[in-house]
């Protein structure tokens, strides 16, 4: 949820203080990593070797509950396990430290997790129900002795408050208790539709209580979990080194359920902020894999006989938001006209290439309850002119189109896309001045609704429709500051449906609510949806078993090096 926040690297890239970062600014910060399994290798996975993974920036913290950026979370993902996990390459749930995905009890107010027995943390202490209770109490009670740490850039447990409503009395989780040594029971204050998906997110990895009790302030750089790799050293600004956990509980679990391995002896995360240098390091063999490729890098890497591209399943959407409370965008006909006026097929073809597909709904088809029945407004400039005339703008109008100054995973080239959109809009008489700001300022100003039209996007973190639809279209998120609903879209019926979808655990009812929301959004057209992106990752051919997660943070347990 904090994924759009400004990272240090992005700041430097935009402000132009680093020579190298300038050119590429892009490489997409934290959240791009991933792809598609290719062939799965032949025969038995091989043991050993070092898997060196190149990425755009370093981690901020290795205490998962304090992490909000993709680069921290993907490292935490290797060191920690949660109670539940996402099945590889999807956002379906599988058990992890729990033995099974629990069924809701008492109308969704109680969940009982049976835990895996015989699991130990990397420091040798046992994993049990008390450890789970210890972690949740640390996160949810602001008065807890260990509600601290995280390092200099700690997010203050913001993923916990973000996903579970807040701390203490505001927390949706009322209590967590150890029923016996290997059973833990959650009691909720109110039912929460996405509860189990939230539990599976990587910030909620279970940490060793002994290590936290020993020194909570230093835990962020001495992380101890139960994951497939154990922490070795962190050379800040450059590398994080991990080694194989020989005693990992998941070795005998099938690969499809997130188990298998770990096969490589060592995992090294290497930060190379300059995108071009990173791709060059991959081509030169110094890296086993790299993320943050641009669409134009894809053909380059595919042509290299030693390299391959894997695409991460899409869990994002890029969009153009119109400020629905400002003239002339308060008129639905104007918004529809703009939808008709843009030739999105051509734009997506040109700027996303193989990495994107034209979006219809405000969430990608990998998310449950995606409405297949909704259709885009077809490209039809004549119809757009008619609609503008109906709205009283026969001669068009002048406005501003804001675009992002740096590439994002959901939009590799905001600057180019803005120019293409402006050119299409000019055809129907709408003249756009193209405006941008430094990235932090851009988020701040769009979050205050200062724009008439703005490009932006969203990378989801748990694959729940609530995580896409509620944040963007609930009027509660059309706030004066830090708005996520930057179309400032307000519709009572939509609010009611979204709230119902979030607070019920009845799947049928949720489906009905979210399906209807997508229809209404298309009718009301507060956005022009642009594309769903499959972020590309590059690998040496010998890398096998890389199973990219749509959320951007996959476990490397199944990775092995052939030949």
């Amino acid at each position, binding site marked *: 949820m904090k994924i759009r926040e400004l990272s240090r690297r992005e700041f430097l890239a935009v402000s132009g203080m680093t020579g190298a970062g300038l050119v*590429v600014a892009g490489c997409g910060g934290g959240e791009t990593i991933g792809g598609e399994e290719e062939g799965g290798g032949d025969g038995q996975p091989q043991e050993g070797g070092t898997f060196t993974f190149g990425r755009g920036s370093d981690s901020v913290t290795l205490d998962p509950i304090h992490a909000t950026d993709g680069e921290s979370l993907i490292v935490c993902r290797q060191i920690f396990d949660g109670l539940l996990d996402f099945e590889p390459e999807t956002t379906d749930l599988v058990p992890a430290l729990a033995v099974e995905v629990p069924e809701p009890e008492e109308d969704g107010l109680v969940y009982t997790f049976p835990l895996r027995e015989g699991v130990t943390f990397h420091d040798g202490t046992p994993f049990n129900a008390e450890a789970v209770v210890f972690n949740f109490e640390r996160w949810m009670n602001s008065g807890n002795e260990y509600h601290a740490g995280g390092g200099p850039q700690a997010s203050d447990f913001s993923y916990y408050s973000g996903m579970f409503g807040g701390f203490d009395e505001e927390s949706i989780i009322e209590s967590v208790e150890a029923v016996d040594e290997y059973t833990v029971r959650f009691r909720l204050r109110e039912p929460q539709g996405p509860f189990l998906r939230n539990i599976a997110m990587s910030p909620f990895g279970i940490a060793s209580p002994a290590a936290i009790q020993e020194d909570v302030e230093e835990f962020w750089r001495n992380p101890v979990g139960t994951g497939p790799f154990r922490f070795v050293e962190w050379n800040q600004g450059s590398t994080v080194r991990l080694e194989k956990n020989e005693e990992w509980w998941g070795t005998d679990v099938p690969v499809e359920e997130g188990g298998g391995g770990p096969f490589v002896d060592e995992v090294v995360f290497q930060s190379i902020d300059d995108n*071009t240098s990173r791709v060059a390091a991959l081509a030169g063999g110094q890296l086993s894999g790299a993320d943050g490729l*641009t*669409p*134009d890098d894809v053909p380059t890497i595919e042509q290299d006989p030693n390299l391959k591209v894997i695409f991460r399943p899409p869990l994002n959407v890029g969009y153009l938001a119109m400020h629905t409370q400002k003239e002339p965008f308060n008129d639905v006909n104007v918004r529809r006209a703009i939808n008709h006026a843009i030739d999105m097929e051509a734009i997506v073809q*040109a700027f996303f290439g193989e990495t994107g597909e034209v979006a219809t709904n405000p969430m990608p088809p990998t998310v449950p309850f995606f409405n297949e029945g909704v259709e885009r407004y077809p490209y039809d400039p004549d119809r757009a002119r008619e609609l503008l005339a109906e709205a009283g703008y026969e001669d068009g109008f002048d406005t501003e189109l804001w675009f992002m100054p740096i590439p994002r995973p959901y939009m590799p080239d905001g600057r180019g896309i803005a120019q293409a959109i402006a050119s299409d809009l000019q055809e129907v008489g709408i003249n756009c*001045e*193209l405006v941008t700001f*430094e990235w932090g300022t851009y988020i701040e100003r769009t979050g205050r609704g200062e724009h008439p039209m703005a490009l932006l996007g969203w990378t989801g973190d748990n694959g729940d429709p609530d995580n896409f639809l509620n944040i963007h279209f609930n009027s509660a998120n059309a706030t004066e500051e830090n708005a996520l609903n930057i179309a400032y879209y307000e519709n009572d019926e939509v609010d009611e449906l979204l709230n119902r979808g979030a607070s019920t655990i009845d799947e049928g009812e949720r489906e009905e609510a979210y399906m209807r929301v997508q229809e209404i959004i298309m009718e009301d057209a507060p956005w022009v949806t642009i594309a769903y992106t499959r972020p590309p990752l590059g690998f040496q051919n010998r890398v096998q078993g890389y199973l990219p997660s749509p959320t951007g943070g996959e476990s490397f347990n199944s990775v092995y090096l052939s030949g």
Partner: protein
Amino acid sequence: MTEQAQAGAQTDVVGGRVESRGRWRDFRRVFFGNRLALTGTAVMALFIFCALFAPIIAPYDPYEQDLTAKFAPPTSQHWLGQDELGRDILSRLIYGARVSLTAGLAAVAFATVVGTVIGVTAGYVGRWVDSVLMRLMDVILAFPTILLAIVIVTILGPSLTNAMLAVGIVNVPQLARVVRSAVITVRERDYVEAERALGAGNLQIVRTAILPNSLAPLIVQATLTLATAILDIAALSFLGLGARPPTPEWGAMLTDAFRSGFGVFVTGQHAIIFPGVAIALSVLSVNFIGDGLRDALDPRQRR
């Protein structure tokens, strides 16, 4: 030049005329005998011609996109190929000459006017005014110019006008210093004393005696500053702090191409090379002209 000659000739009217003709001849001889300066002048003339007659010369509309021809290589229709939006690079470079040269000139004009006012005031008035103004200039000089320009644009908001202003501001101290030192050498000359004896006021002395005789170093410095100004504005645009898209500014054209990623080095080199060459050529030419002017105008170097 004639004004300068007249001013210099005030002490000896007859000899002055002879000297005036001699100076102009010397200037021509030295400047046009300098092959680099001549080449620079020719290239600049070409760029200025492009800038003036862009709509007539440019083969295509510089804004017209063709998304199907992304990074299409040079062909007989598109001599320098097409950019990331399928726009004709040659046409954009031709229109870009307008933007980049005008922006550079505007920045230098600003720096020259402000720098001259500060330099003349400091040099002519002297005493504490001199100290205060020049220390202020030193403060600005203490920062690397491009960094300071970035800070100014970041505060004012990114746009071409603000980029011009920022580049103008950071170049003021150089010009102010040159003017000041010229004014100080001229200030005590006999002809200045003569003007004063004739009852001329300060402003008139500055106008008729001081300025014209300080002009030579100013012209040289302003020309050399033009080169860095063009480069700095291109750099700001490259960083997304200058010209707004879709303006065909040379630095902005570079950044447009670079934003497409590593692949541009394989498939779209022309989109990087040609704007880069345009920037390099214009900067080199202006530098050559500046060097030629210095050789021709500075009497010490001439000997």
